[in-house]
């Protein structure tokens, strides 16, 4: 008997604004970011630093490839047995005094959390940095209902105070420099010292004072989780600053929102993931804080523990033979840091809380692609398929192949359109030409006419649309006098 996860359901939000769906097609959103020099400098610097750190600590591991293989195998096993594992997890959480809630989508999860917070009669909660709660827009949801959700992760706090959106999974304020941070603190943090400078230590101290007051006062905390362990019912968060640990130990009530794919079968699986995650993520051998909690322990830590198991499109991805590999992601963000596209556009261009290469795969899977007018359909194309993401992924998600498959689906979802687009016509014609040598040779003859538009230097500086996109930044060589096959016939007489 297995748990019925419900009919696969996609949080479609096709028309509304959602943390998982942008409003601009990727190329347009990217253009904005590319025009922002400060942003590009900040990103280039930060990603380069973290790339180097990661490479160092990964290269020193003699068994890194074996660890990746194991991580990947565990995740494959999890996806194959997800219903059973979730059921086992649920039973163990309950056995240890926790309460388990199931949420099919963002709305349901937000409602459950809000009700739990209201039951404690508070109007402020503290938060551990969490992608799951960002994905459902929990902070905004709570705020609309009169509950302030205070982020305690430093970078998250900067984003929150700046009325901004995170731009990176791990380093949400990666696009900000320290002068910008000081300005945000001075303007938005009521208890910031008036003489605050942009010295990193002073900034950290100001945030620490501000947060300490929150930690000591708050009765309810909300977290996400890095792992949920089926055979013990244990939840875990890894972090660098220790703010998360304050949240999961000081308040009376702890509410954890967990994407259902975060399950690990056994406690010993942690030995693999606690090696893979910090090295891939922050480039550290070990993260400074690992907090694990199992239900409720009388007299120690939160005495009410709730976990909300979130689907929000995941069973849909799970039902997808090719796409389910994207659910293996442990949100380390290594693929973002090596992606040349992410490095230049930043996270906002992807329109989703999941940016970068994995976002380009995950977002369309969680919320669907509905034809060429859908911004999601542009995400699988936000990659040059250079493959750097696949190389660094600690659980070996073959992102380039997933991107190609999703491109195929984006194209397929448009088939049968009454007026085919320019790309359709061009690709159909090219397929016709490239599957027949006679047609190809004829096309080469036509191409030779391109020699006429070239300057005397044999450079073409302006091509008609869509080639104009090419010649905006670079020249095109004029076609040669003789194709290779003509040369071959002349020289090899065949």
């Amino acid at each position, binding site marked *: 008997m297995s748990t019925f996860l419900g009919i696969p359901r996609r949080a479609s939000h096709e028309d509304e604004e959602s943390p998982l769906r942008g409003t601009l097609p990727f190329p347009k959103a990217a253009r904005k970011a*590319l025009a922002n020099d400060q942003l590009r400098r900040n990103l280039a610097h930060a990603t380069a630093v973290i790339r180097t750190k990661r490479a160092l600590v990964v290269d020193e591991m003699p068994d890194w490839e074996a660890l990746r293989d194991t991580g990947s195998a565990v995740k494959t096993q999890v996806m194959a047995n997800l219903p059973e594992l979730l059921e086992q997890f649920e039973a163990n959480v309950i056995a240890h005094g926790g309460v388990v809630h199931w949420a099919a989508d963002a709305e349901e999860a937000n409602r459950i959390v809000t009700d739990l917070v209201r039951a404690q009669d508070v109007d402020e909660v503290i938060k551990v940095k969490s992608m799951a709660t960002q994905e459902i827009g929990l902070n905004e949801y709570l705020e609309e209902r009169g509950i302030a959700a205070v982020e305690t992760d430093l970078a998250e706090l900067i984003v929150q105070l700046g009325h901004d959106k995170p731009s990176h999974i791990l380093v949400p304020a990666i696009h900000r420099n320290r002068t910008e941070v000081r300005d945000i603190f001075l303007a938005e943090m009521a208890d910031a010292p008036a003489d605050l400078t942009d010295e990193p230590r002073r900034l950290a101290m100001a945030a620490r004072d501000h947060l300490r007051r929150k930690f000591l006062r708050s009765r309810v905390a909300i977290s996400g989780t890095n792992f949920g362990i089926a055979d013990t019912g244990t939840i875990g968060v890894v972090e660098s600053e220790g703010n998360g640990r304050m949240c999961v130990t000081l308040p009376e009530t702890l509410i954890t929102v967990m994407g259902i794919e975060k399950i690990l079968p056994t406690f010993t699986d942690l030995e693999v993931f606690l090696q893979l995650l910090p090295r891939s993520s922050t480039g550290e051998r070990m993260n400074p804080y690992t907090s694990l909690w199992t239900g409720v322990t009388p007299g120690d830590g939160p005495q009410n523990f709730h976990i909300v198991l979130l689907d929000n499109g995941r069973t849909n991805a799970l039902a997808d033979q090719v796409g389910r590999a994207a659910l293996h992601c442990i949100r380390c963000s290594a693929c973002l840091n090596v992606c040349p596209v992410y490095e230049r556009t930043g996270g906002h261009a992807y329109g989703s809380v999941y940016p970068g290469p994995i976002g380009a795969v995950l977002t369309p899977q969680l919320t669907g692609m509905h034809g060429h007018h859908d911004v999601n359909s542009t995400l*699988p194309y936000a990659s040059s*398929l*250079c*493959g750097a993401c696949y190389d660094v992924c600690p659980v070996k998600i073959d992102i380039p*192949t997933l991107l190609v498959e999703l*491109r195929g689906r984006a194209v397929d979802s448009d088939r049968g359109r009454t007026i085919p687009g320019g790309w359709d016509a061009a690709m159909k014609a090219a*397929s016709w030409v490239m599957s027949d040598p006679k047609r190809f040779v004829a096309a080469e003859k036509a191409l030779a006419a391109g020699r006429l538009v070239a300057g005397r230097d044999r450079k073409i500086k302006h091509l008609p649309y869509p080639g104009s996109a090419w010649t905006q930044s670079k020249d095109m060589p004029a076609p040669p006098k003789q*194709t290779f*096959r003509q040369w071959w016939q002349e020289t090899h007489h065949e």
Partner: protein
Amino acid sequence: MRIALIATCLGDALFPEVARATTLLLERLGHEVVFPPDQVCCGQMHVNTGYLAEAVPVVRHHVEVFEAADFDVAVAPSGSCVGSVRHQQAMVARRVGDTLLARRATALAGRTYELSELLVDVLDVTDVGAYYPHRVTYHPTCHSLRMLRVGDKPLKLLRQVQGIDLVELPGAQECCGFGGTFSIKNADTSSAMLADKVRNVVGTGADRCTAGDASCLMNIGGGLSRQDTGVRTIHLAEILASARESVAA
């Protein structure tokens, strides 16, 4: 050895010097080169643009042409085309349920090599007797680097070239921004990537930038040319095919 040449569609139409150099190099090394004349394209452009169904006839044609030809191994002077033969052709065939075509494509892929792989792994040579008196920097293209894992084979070959002054390219492993139709669909991002690559190439002080892919070189070369840097691009095959006599001319 009897070596079938995959000229690649781009190489045939726009960069015939690359396939020519490959032919002359292999002939100089004492091998027989055959050019199956009906060949066209490996299907990569369609696959990477998402037109997977449209790729199938292109792939089928490639497989039929090379199956009919008589050769020991096939070679393409292009990491990305060999990557497409090895990693994409069977995939698109399977996707439309044509398992027979997938098997045939896989069998063919098993004897298809990128130029530096063929030279170093199959023909077991690193000194091809080339002479090329230029300061050269090498860009390892993404597909050679990550799909094929050619590693330092191209560098091993380049180091044996006489007269060459080989200089390291900073940020070598970063994509040049081409990515096929990516350079058109995401032209702004692609141009930003290219700008960095061009800056790095120019910074080396090299007068030639080489790589194992005509397509990436077309992109980098286009940027170098637009900015009047004076640096030219040249395919690895052309350097390896150069000899004292040809350079003198």
